[in-house]
């Protein structure tokens, strides 16, 4: 066992670091330095810069335009991004529908969609949840009715369609068979957002930003070419997708960045005539969260190392979402404690609070979603109890 990096790996790190310093545009670099929130346009700017370099999809195989890195290189790359605070790319194309199309899509679908996901020409969003189907996703009622010509008419309402207002395409789970139970009758579709009959209405989260949308489908025609794989097999595909890059979902980088920000601010903020960071009790509090985050980081490394050897995700990978999202919340809670009354600020003009503190209150609220979305943590626990611990069902 070994946790060190080889000289080649260290050279790779140096290459990444120096390229990042060059490549990140100055206006983004300032925002990154302050951990400011990036706009959709800024995120896409950064997407395109990475794409031009060939580094936008570290985990894609080379034949589809990935850089051909191994797990350790991908880890080093992600660490360097974290240290710079670069914008986080939208996962819906790169991490979700892209790998799914690679695994289950036809050659035509792969040629049609993958290049534009890579380039950022086409932005994707996800159509899974419905108002009545959240944790119980399999109870979804959006229907795709097959027409005489083989195309489908899509009707229903999706919610939590993150950034649908910016999306060119949406991937949708819809029911193609009403007669079978739950999971069995669901298919997986790729839908052009410009198709007539689609209505998108952004709504505010508690973070005060329109990150999510309601999306209605009113007899939206989906060409048969846009069905993934076989009809009624959509649930299987969607489940396989959950296995992709599970390690990303831990968000160790996000939490580490938040902790770093908390420390930086705590070093500036004066309490009793000394920096807050020097308060022994508070410092111990920060340290404890960092220690927990380190344990998670090693757990991610274990999962990556195992994946690199081609093993199936082990028991350790199942806890990443659970603990990762808890630590995202714990670290932002600490950051809010650090900034004290400046954490009262809500979308005020620049300069009202220190730049590094500006985005914290919005994230503090929004990150409550992390333990709810992508399978709530309660659902994760049900799954682990059953599949890993083998506890009996009621």
């Amino acid at each position, binding site marked *: 066992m070994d946790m060190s990096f080889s000289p080649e790996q260290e050279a790779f790190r140096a290459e990444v670091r120096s390229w990042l310093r060059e490549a990140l545009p100055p206006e983004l670099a300032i925002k990154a330095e302050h951990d400011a929130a990036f706009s959709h346009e800024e995120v896409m700017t950064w997407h395109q810069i990475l794409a031009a370099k060939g580094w936008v999809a570290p985990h894609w195989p080379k034949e589809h335009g990935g850089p051909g890195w191994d797990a350790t290189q991908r880890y080093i790359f992600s660490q360097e991004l974290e240290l710079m605070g670069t914008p986080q790319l939208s996962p819906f194309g790169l991490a979700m529908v892209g790998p799914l199309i690679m695994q289950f899509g036809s050659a035509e679908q792969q040629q049609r969609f993958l290049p534009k996901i890579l380039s950022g020409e086409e932005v994707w969003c996800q159509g899974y*949840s419905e108002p009545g189907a*959240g*944790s*119980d996703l399999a*109870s979804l009622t959006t229907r795709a009715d097959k027409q005489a010509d083989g195309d489908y008419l899509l009707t229903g309402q999706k*919610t*939590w369609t993150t950034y649908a207002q910016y999306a060119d395409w949406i991937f949708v789970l819809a029911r193609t068979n009403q007669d079978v139970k739950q999971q069995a009758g669901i298919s997986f579709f790729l839908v052009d957002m410009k198709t007539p009959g689609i209505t998108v209405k952004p*709504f*505010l*989260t*508690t*973070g*005060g930003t329109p990150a*999510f949308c309601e999306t209605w489908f009113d007899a939206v025609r989906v060409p048969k070419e846009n069905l993934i794989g076989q009809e009624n097999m959509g649930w299987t595909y969607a489940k396989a997708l959950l296995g992709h890059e599970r390690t990303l979902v831990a968000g160790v980088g996000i939490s580490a960045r938040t902790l770093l920000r908390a420390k930086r601010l705590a070093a500036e*903020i*004066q*309490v*009793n*005539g000394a920096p807050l960071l020097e*308060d022994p*009790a*508070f410092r111990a*509090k920060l340290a404890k969260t960092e220690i927990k985050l380190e344990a998670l980081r090693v757990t991610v490394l274990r999962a990556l190392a195992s994946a690199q050897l081609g093993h199936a995700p082990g028991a350790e990978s199942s806890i990443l979402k659970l603990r990762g999202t808890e630590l995202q*919340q714990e670290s932002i*809670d600490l950051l*809010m*404690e650090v900034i*004290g*009354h*400046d*954490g*009262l*600020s*809500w*979308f*005020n003009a620049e300069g*009202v609070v220190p730049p590094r503190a500006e985005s914290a*209150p919005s994230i*503090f*609220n*929004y990150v*409550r*979603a992390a*333990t*709810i*979305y992508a399978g*709530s*943590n*309660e659902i994760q*626990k049900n799954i682990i109890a059953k599949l890993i611990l083998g506890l009996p069902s009621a």
Partner: protein
Amino acid sequence: MDFELSDDQRLLVRTVADFCKKESPVTRLRQLRETELGWEPRTLAQMGELGWLGVMFPEEYGGLGGSFTDTALILEQLGMTLVPEPYLASIVLGGLAVRFAAAPERAAELLPPLLAGEEVWALAYAEAQGRGAPSDIETRATQRGDGYRLTGEKRWVLAGHGASRLIVSARTAGDPRDASGVSLFLVDPKAPGVTVTRVDCMDGHKAAMVSLADAPGELLGEAGAAAPILTRVLDYGAAAACAEGSGIMQAVLAMTRDYLCDRAQFGVKIGTFQALQHRAVDLFVETELAKSSAIAAMIAADDERPEERMRAVSAAKCQLTLSGGFVVRQGTQLHGGIGVTDEHDIGLYFKRMHSLVTLFGDETFHTQRFASLPSFTAHL
């Protein structure tokens, strides 16, 4: 020992609860957070007429001569529907600062319109450094003729954007963090040298950043002696936060319980899931414990012995952080996706709880203060 409300108190609670339910449901905060002021003057006046604002002030100041407990009982109810009028900021902080700092005759002149709900006051005590510690300020006041001129930067002055009077702390002597040398001044926000910049708060309330450049101020009471007064007023603020927070927890518990009874997934009400039931019980336990410590703090807030007061207030403020933080977080979690939409009320409770937890000394401050009191090492 007596935890029963008096008949008068029972009536008061019922009246306030009725008002909140009928006239100020959470939708009022939702509407008013979009306005510049953030509250309605006529509602404040109505509260004044009903005697709610002056309830704990002596009769000679236009009050009803009650106790802080009466005020806390009102705040608990107002917390349940997040009533946006600046009771805590204007009455508890502003009003009590003048009551305890000003000479009695001056207080008697100043307070009646405040307690009638005709004015709003704001207490400008916090600066960039020091986490709101009364003595850790850099704003200075220098005597000029028979008045004072103030220079400095005050931050997060709650309700300061809509206040007709500011009560401002400034040093007339000493260095930052010296125990003595802090004085309180009455400052007209429209006076030359005063710049009031409105800022929006996460909880939908508003506040002001106040910049003072040689601004005129009227000394309240004795020069240099205001630090203990401010500490006392901020303890009232902390106890008020605990009372309001107790109301918030009760509301969040109730709405979470209702959601669990109402929402179905997997073909059953989610309230049948044992893991969620036990979480709901945890919410209940924390709500009851925080209520207990809030009661102890509201009673002790009037205690003339600083140690007794500080012990109960610090304990309650810590408990608020522990219990209140848990209740709004897990209340949100139990609501699932709907709980993180701006549309649902629980997010507003979450936000307000954060203000209450943060203001008037956070967990670290109050834990350390609690541990530094002689009572902590009694009987050793």
